[in-house]
C-alpha cells in the first residue's frame, strides 16, 4: 500500500487550516497557534515507484500550490515537536465518495493496476495542547465516530471484502410468546405487539415460519415512514373519532377544490400541477432528521440527494430545477453543559448540514433558492432538516406509469452496499443517546456525481420511451421500491443480480440496503438492450434484476433459492389500522405585565438580531442560486444584493415569460400556544409571500411537512390533529389545494431519563404559477418620496411573538387567520399590484411592522418614517410597542409612488389599509407613536448591522 500525503506549499494560504483554527477558537480553546489540513490517499495495487510518482505529479497534486510526500508507513515531514498530528479515516464499509473518481483518474493515466483507493485527512495543530484538549478537539470537530476513526497505527485499508456464504435464515416466529415478539421487534423492526401478532397469525395460517428477509420486508413496508400509520389511523380525540386524519383534512381540501390543474396528487413521489399547458411542475419536500442528527454532513447530503430523486421518479421522470431547504437547530451558542448527552453540538450540526446540502445541490447544478433556518433549544437533540425539490416535466408524462407482466425490473445508477441499513425503521423510533451506536449502519454518504450522471442519462431514456414506469430507491431500498411498484402485478427478483459495491452482502442486506443514487425502472423486454446500451454510453450501470409477474406475489430468489414469498395483499393491506388516543388542552402562559417602553429602538435592534429573524446570507451565498440561469427573484435583493426576499421566482423555461414562485411558511413558536393557529399562520405566511412578490392565488399548490413528537403520546397526537384540522379550514378557504406532503414523527430525544420533544413544527411550502415574470415585485424600497401603506389589520396578537420572546414571555394571544377576509384581501392586493405600479411589497411576519419596514428600508438603502397612529387596529390596541411588533397575519407593507396614490387606494377601497409612512433619502428610520410622539429613531446602517451580525460567520 502506498500512502501519499498532499499538502499546501509553504507561502500559500491555507483556508482549511484557518477555518479549523477558527472552529477550535469557537470551542474556547485558544492555544492552537496554527492549523493545517492535508489530504491522504492510500493506494493498493501493484505499482512501481515511477507510476506512483506519476500519479502524484499528474493527478493528485497541483503543481503550483501543492507538494506531496509518499511512503509505506508513518506520517512524514514533521520535525517540529510542537505539533500534534491527527489522521482521520473513514470506518470500514463507509462509502468514500472520492474513490471512484481517483480510480478513473489513474486509469486515464494508463495505469490499470490500482485495486483500491481510500482517502483520509491529517490535521496538524501547533501549540500547547493537553491530551484532554486534543481529545476534545477530535470529538467536537475532527472525528464523527459514526463514520470515521483516528488512525493510530498503520493499517491496511480494511475493505469489507469477506465472502458471503449463503444460508437461508428462518426466524422461529410461530413459537414466540408476546415478550419474545417484542424483543425481536425492538431496535430492529420497530413494530408494535399488535403488528407482530398480525404477522405471526399470517405465517401460522401458512403453516411455516418467516424468513428473515420476509420479516424485514414487512417491517419496512409497515413502518411509520412508509405507511403513515398515524395519519391513516383511527384517532379518538374526546368524543370525536377521526378515521384517517390525512384523508379527512389535507387530502379533503384537494378533493373538494377539484382544481383541473392538479394533474397528479398524493399518488406519486411528488405532486404534479400544470404549468403552461405543455409542461408540468412537481414538488416534494422531505425530512432527513435522524440521519442528520448523528452525521450532519452525510445525513443532510443524502437528504437532498433523496428528495431530488422524488421528482426524478414522478410521472415518467422530471428534471430537477430548484431546491429548497429549511433547517431547525439548537442555538449555535448553546453552552456545552446544556447539551444533552450523546448529542453533537448545534453549531457543528448547523455547519455540517449546511455543507452537506450545499455540496450535493451545487454539484448537481440545481439552484437552492428558498429556505429558512430556525433555532430553539429543543431542537438540540433532534434537529430538523427539510429538503425540497421542484421538477419540470412534459405534461404528457405527468402520470405515474404502469408496468405490465413480463416487463423487466431494472435498477440503475449507483451500486448497492451495506450503507443505510434500517434507515426507515430507524426514522420510526425516538432518538436516544445510544442512537449513535445503533444507527451506524443507517448513515449514508452521498455521491452527487453518481446521481448527476444517472439523471442526465435517465432523462434521455425517458424521452426515447425506453421504460414504462419509474420510482426512486429511497427509504427501505429495493424492498420499498420494488414492493410498492409491484403491488398490482407481482414480481420475481433475483437478488444475486443486483450490482454490489463489494462482496459479502447477505441477500437480506441487498434487499433492504438504502444505498443512495439508485432508481428503479419497469422496462418492456424489447427495450432493455437499447436502455442498457444508452446507460453504458454514459458510464452508468443498468442491471436487470427480475421481472414483473401477474400473480400478485413478492418472490425473491437468491441463487435459485426462494427466500421470500409474500402475497401483495397482506404486504400492503395486512397492517391493522392503528387506533390511538389523543388529548388536547390549550396551555396557559403568563401574560406579560411590563410597561410600554418609551423608546422602541433597542427592542427593534434585538428582534432584528434574533437568530430566527437575522440575515442568513452566510448560508445563502454558499448555495449556488444562479445555476440553470433561471432565477428571476433571488433570495437576496436590494441595493447591495443583501435584503431578504419574500419568495423565490424562477423562469423554468428560459425562452418563456412564465414563472414559478416558491415560498414557505413556518413558525413553531405559535405551536407552543396552539398548533391550530400555527398551521393557519404557516399557510397564511406562505401565501402572503406569493402575493408580495407579484403572484396571485389562482394557481397555488401547497405541501405539508409535519415534524412532530411521538404520536403514541396523546398530547402530541392531539396537537397533530389540531394542526391538520387547520390545514383543511384555511386551505379550503384560500382555495389552495395540497398536492403532496410528508410526516416525520417520533422527533424526541431521550437522555438521562428525560424526554425532550421538539416544538411541533409544520412547514408549509407553496408553489405558484406566475403568468408573466416581468411583473415581479421585490421587497426593497425603491425611491424617496414614495408612500408606505399597510394592508391588513394589526391586532393584539403578540402570543408567540418575537417581541414577547425578548422579554421572556410566550403569552396566549396567538395570531389567528380569517381566511375568507384574507382571501379577499390577497386577491384585491394582487389585482392592485397588477394594475398600478406597486414598487415594493413585503410580507409582515416575525417582528411585525417594525421588522418588515426596517428590512424594506435598509434593503433599499433608504430611510423611512412610519406613523403608528395611521395603522388600522383591532380591538384594545393602545400600546405603540404592540402595534409595531404584533405579528397578526394577512398583512403587507406596500410602497407606492405618489402619482399612483389614488389608483392604489381605489383598488383597495373597502379593505383595511392605510398610508402609514414615507420613504426618505436621509437613511434614518423613524417611528412616531399613536400620540404623535417619536418612539423610535435609528439609522438604517445600525439596523442592518444588527440584522447581519449574528450569523456573519
Amino acid at each position, binding site marked *: 500500500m502506498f500512502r501519499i500525503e498532499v499538502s499546501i506549499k509553504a507561502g500559500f494560504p491555507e483556508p482549511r487550516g484557518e477555518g479549523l483554527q477558527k472552529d477550535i477558537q469557537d470551542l474556547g480553546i485558544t492555544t492552537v497557534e496554527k492549523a493545517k489540513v492535508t489530504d491522504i490517499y492510500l493506494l493498493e495495487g501493484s505499482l512501481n515507484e515511477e507510476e506512483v510518482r506519476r500519479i502524484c505529479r499528474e493527478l493528485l497534486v497541483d503543481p503550483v500550490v501543492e507538494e506531496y510526500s509518499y511512503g509505506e508507513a508513518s506520517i512524514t515531514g514533521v520535525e517540529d515537536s510542537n505539533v500534534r498530528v491527527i489522521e482521520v479515516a473513514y470506518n470500514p464499509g463507509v462509502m468514500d465518495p472520492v474513490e471512484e473518481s481517483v480510480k478513473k*483518474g489513474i486509469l486515464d493515466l494508463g495505469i490499470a493496476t490500482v485495486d483500491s483507493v481510500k482517502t483520509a485527512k491529517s490535521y496538524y495543530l501547533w501549540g500547547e495542547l493537553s491530551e484532554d484538549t486534543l481529545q476534545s478537539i477530535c470529538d467536537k470537530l475532527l472525528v464523527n465516530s459514526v463514520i470515521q476513526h483516528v488512525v493510530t497505527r498503520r493499517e491496511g485499508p480494511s475493505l469489507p471484502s469477506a465472502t458471503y456464504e449463503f444460508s437461508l435464515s428462518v426466524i422461529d416466529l410461530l413459537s414466540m410468546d408476546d415478550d419474545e415478539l417484542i424483543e425481536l421487534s425492538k431496535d430492529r423492526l420497530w413494530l408494535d405487539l399488535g403488528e407482530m401478532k398480525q404477522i405471526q397469525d399470517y405465517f401460522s395460517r401458512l403453516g411455516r415460519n418467516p424468513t428473515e428477509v420476509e420479516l424485514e420486508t414487512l417491517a419496512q413496508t409497515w413502518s411509520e415512514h412508509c405507511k403513515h400509520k398515524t395519519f391513516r389511523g383511527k384517532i379518538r380525540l374526546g368524543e370525536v373519532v377521526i378515521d384517517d386524519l390525512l384523508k379527512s383534512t389535507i387530502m379533503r381540501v384537494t378533493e373538494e377544490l377539484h382544481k383541473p390543474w392538479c394533474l397528479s396528487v398524493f399518488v406519486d413521489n411528488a405532486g404534479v400541477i400544470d404549468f403552461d399547458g405543455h409542461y408540468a411542475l412537481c414538488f416534494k419536500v422531505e425530512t432527513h432528521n435522524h440521519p442528520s442528527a448523528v452525521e450532519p454532513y452525510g445525513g443532510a447530503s443524502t437528504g437532498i440527494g433523496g428528495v431530488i430523486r422524488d421528482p426524478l421518479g414522478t410521472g415518467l421522470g422530471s428534471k430537477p430545477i430548484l431546491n429548497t431547504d429549511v433547517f431547525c437547530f439548537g442555538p449555535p451558542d448553546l453552552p456545552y453543559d446544556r447539551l444533552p448527552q450523546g448529542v453533537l453540538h448545534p453549531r457543528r450540526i448547523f455547519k455540517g448540514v449546511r455543507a452537506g446540502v450545499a455540496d450535493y445541490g451545487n454539484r448537481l447544478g440545481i439552484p437552492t433558492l428558498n429556505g429558512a433556518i430556525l433555532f430553539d433549544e429543543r431542537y438540540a437533540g433532534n434537529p430538523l432538516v427539510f429538503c425540497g425539490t421542484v421538477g419540470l416535466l412534459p405534461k404528457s408524462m405527468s402520470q405515474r406509469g404502469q408496468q405490465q407482466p413480463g416487463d423487466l425490473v431494472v435498477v440503475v445508477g449507483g451500486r448497492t452496499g451495506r450503507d443505510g441499513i434500517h434507515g426507515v425503521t430507524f426514522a420510526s423510533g425516538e432518538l436516544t443517546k445510544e442512537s449513535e451506536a445503533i444507527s451506524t449502519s443507517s448513515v449514508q454518504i452521498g455521491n452527487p456525481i453518481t446521481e448527476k450522471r444517472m439523471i442526465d442519462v435517465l432523462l434521455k431514456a425517458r424521452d426515447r420511451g425506453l421504460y414504462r414506469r419509474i420510482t426512486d430507491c429511497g427509504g427501505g431500498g429495493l424492498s420499498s421500491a420494488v414492493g410498492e411498484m409491484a403491488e398490482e402485478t407481482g414480481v420475481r427478483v433475483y437478488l444475486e443480480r443486483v450490482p454490489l459495491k463489494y462482496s459479502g452482502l447477505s441477500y437480506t442486506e441487498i434487499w433492504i440496503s438504502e444505498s443512495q443514487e439508485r432508481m428503479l425502472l419497469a422496462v418492456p423486454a424489447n427495450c432493455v438492450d437499447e436502455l442498457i446500451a444508452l446507460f453504458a454510453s454514459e458510464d452508468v450501470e443498468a442491471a436487470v434484476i427480475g421481472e414483473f409477474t401477474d400473480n400478485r406475489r413478492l418472490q425473491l430468489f437468491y441463487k435459485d433459492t426462494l427466500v421470500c414469498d409474500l402475497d401483495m395483499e397482506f404486504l400492503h393491506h395486512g397492517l391493522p389500522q392503528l387506533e390511538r388516543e389523543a388529548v388536547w388542552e390549550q396551555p396557559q402562559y403568563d401574560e406579560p405585565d411590563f410597561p410600554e417602553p418609551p423608546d422602541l429602538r433597542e427592542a427593534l435592534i434585538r428582534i432584528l438580531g434574533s437568530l430566527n429573524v437575522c440575515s442568513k446570507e452566510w448560508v445563502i451565498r454558499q448555495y449556488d442560486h444562479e445555476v440553470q440561469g433561471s432565477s428571476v427573484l433571488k433570495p437576496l435583493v436590494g441595493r447591495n444584493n443583501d435584503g431578504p426576499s419574500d419568495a423565490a421566482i424562477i423562469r423554468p423555461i428560459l425562452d418563456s415569460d412564465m414563472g414559478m414562485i416558491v415560498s414557505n411558511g413556518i413558525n413553531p413558536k405559535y405551536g407552543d400556544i396552539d398548533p391550530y393557529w400555527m398551521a393557519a399562520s404557516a399557510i397564511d405566511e406562505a401565501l402572503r409571500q406569493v402575493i408580495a412578490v407579484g403572484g396571485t392565488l389562482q394557481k397555488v399548490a401547497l405541501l405539508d411537512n409535519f415534524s412532530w413528537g411521538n404520536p403514541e403520546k396523546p398530547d402530541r397526537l392531539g396537537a397533530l390533529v389540531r394542526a391538520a384540522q387547520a390545514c383543511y379550514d384555511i386551505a379550503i378557504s384560500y382555495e389552495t389545494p395540497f398536492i403532496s406532503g410528508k410526516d416525520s414523527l417520533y422527533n424526541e430525544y431521550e437522555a438521562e431519563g428525560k424526554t425532550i420533544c421538539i416544538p411541533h413544527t409544520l412547514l408549509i411550502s407553496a408553489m405558484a404559477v406566475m403568468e408573466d415574470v416581468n411583473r415581479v415585485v421585490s421587497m426593497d424600497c425603491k425611491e424617496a418620496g414614495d408612500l408606505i401603506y399597510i394592508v391588513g389589520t394589526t391586532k393584539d396578537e403578540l402570543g408567540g411573538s418575537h417581541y414577547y420572546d425578548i422579554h421572556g414571555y410566550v403569552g396566549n394571544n396567538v395570531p389567528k387567520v380569517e381566511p375568507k377576509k384574507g382571501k379577499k384581501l390577497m386577491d384585491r392586493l394582487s389585482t392592485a399590484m397588477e394594475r398600478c405600479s406597486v414598487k415594493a411589497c413585503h410580507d409582515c411576519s416575525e417582528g411585525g411592522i417594525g421588522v418588515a419596514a426596517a428590512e424594506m428600508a435598509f434593503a433599499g438603502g433608504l430611510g423611512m418614517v412610519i406613523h403608528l397612529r395611521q395603522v388600522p387596529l383591532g380591538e384594545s390596541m393602545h400600546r405603540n410597542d404592540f402595534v409595531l411588533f404584533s405579528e397578526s397575519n394577512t398583512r403587507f407593507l406596500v410602497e407606492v409612488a405618489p402619482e399612483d396614490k389614488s389608483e392604489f387606494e381605489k383598488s383597495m377601497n373597502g379593505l383595511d389599509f392605510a398610508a402609514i409612512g414615507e420613504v426618505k433619502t436621509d437613511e434614518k428610520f423613524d417611528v412616531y407613536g399613536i400620540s404623535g410622539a417619536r418612539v423610535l429613531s435609528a439609522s438604517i446602517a445600525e439596523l442592518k448591522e444588527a440584522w447581519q451580525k449574528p450569523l456573519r460567520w
Partner: protein
Amino acid sequence: MANVKTLMLKAPGTNCDVETTFAFEQAGAQVESAHINELLRRQKLLSNYQIMVIPGGFTYGDDISAGKILANEVRLKLGEDIQRFVEDGGLVLGICNGFQVLVKAGILSKSADGGPPQLSLAGNDSGKFESRWVYLSANPTSPCIFTQGITTMYLPVAHGEGKVVGEPKILDELNVVLYYADETGNIQAGYPYNPNGSANSIAGICDDSGRVFALMPHPERFVRWTQHPRWTREPRREYGDGFRVFRNAVEWVKNA
C-alpha cells in the same frame, strides 16, 4: 457562413450546459451537446464545429481538485484534437469549471519543457464556495475575440476554487482579459470584489491568438435583463452584460 456550429462538451458533473446553450442560441449559434465519451469514441468530431465550449459544473465531483480529472482526460485523450481545432481557427470558451479544465490541461497555461502547468486555480482565500455578483473590468489591449468592445461587465460567480495562482513571471506573461474590480473600475478593491483572492485580480485569460478564452464568472447567467439581481430597481436594458460574449463569438465566426 450561415450556421455557426457550437459543441457543448459534457462530462459527468457538467451542469451549466443548458443555460450556456441558450445563450449561444440567443446569439445565433447552432449548438450540439456532446458527452465526452462521444468525442473519445469518435462519434462526434471536433473538426465539424467552429466553437467548442467547456461549460461550468463540477466534473467528476471536482474530486482531487476542481476540474482536474476532466483536465487529464482532455490532455491525454483529446489534447491533439483540441490543438488542431485551435490552429484551424476554432474558438474555445471555458467557463468556471471550463477555466479550471483548460488551465490544468495545459491548454491555457504555459509549461516549461513539457512539464506540469505553472499556472493554476486554487481554493478561494475565504475557504468557501461563494455565489455572488462581481464587477469586471476588461483589458482594452486584450486580443480576446469574445470580449471585443466590452469595457465592463457585471456577472455572477459561483465557485470554491477560482483563485488564479502562479509565479509572478508566469502571471506577468498572461494575456489577462478580465479583472475583478469595484463599481468604479478599481481593480485593487479586494474581497469581496475580488471574490477569491485571485492574483492581480485576474478573472479571465486568453491565449495569444485570442481565440481560447476562459473566465471564472458566468456570462451565460446574465444574458437577459431579469437575471440581474437588481432588475426590479434599475432601468431596463435589452440584454444582460454576458450576452455580448456569445454574440462576439458567433459574429466573429460568421465574419471569418
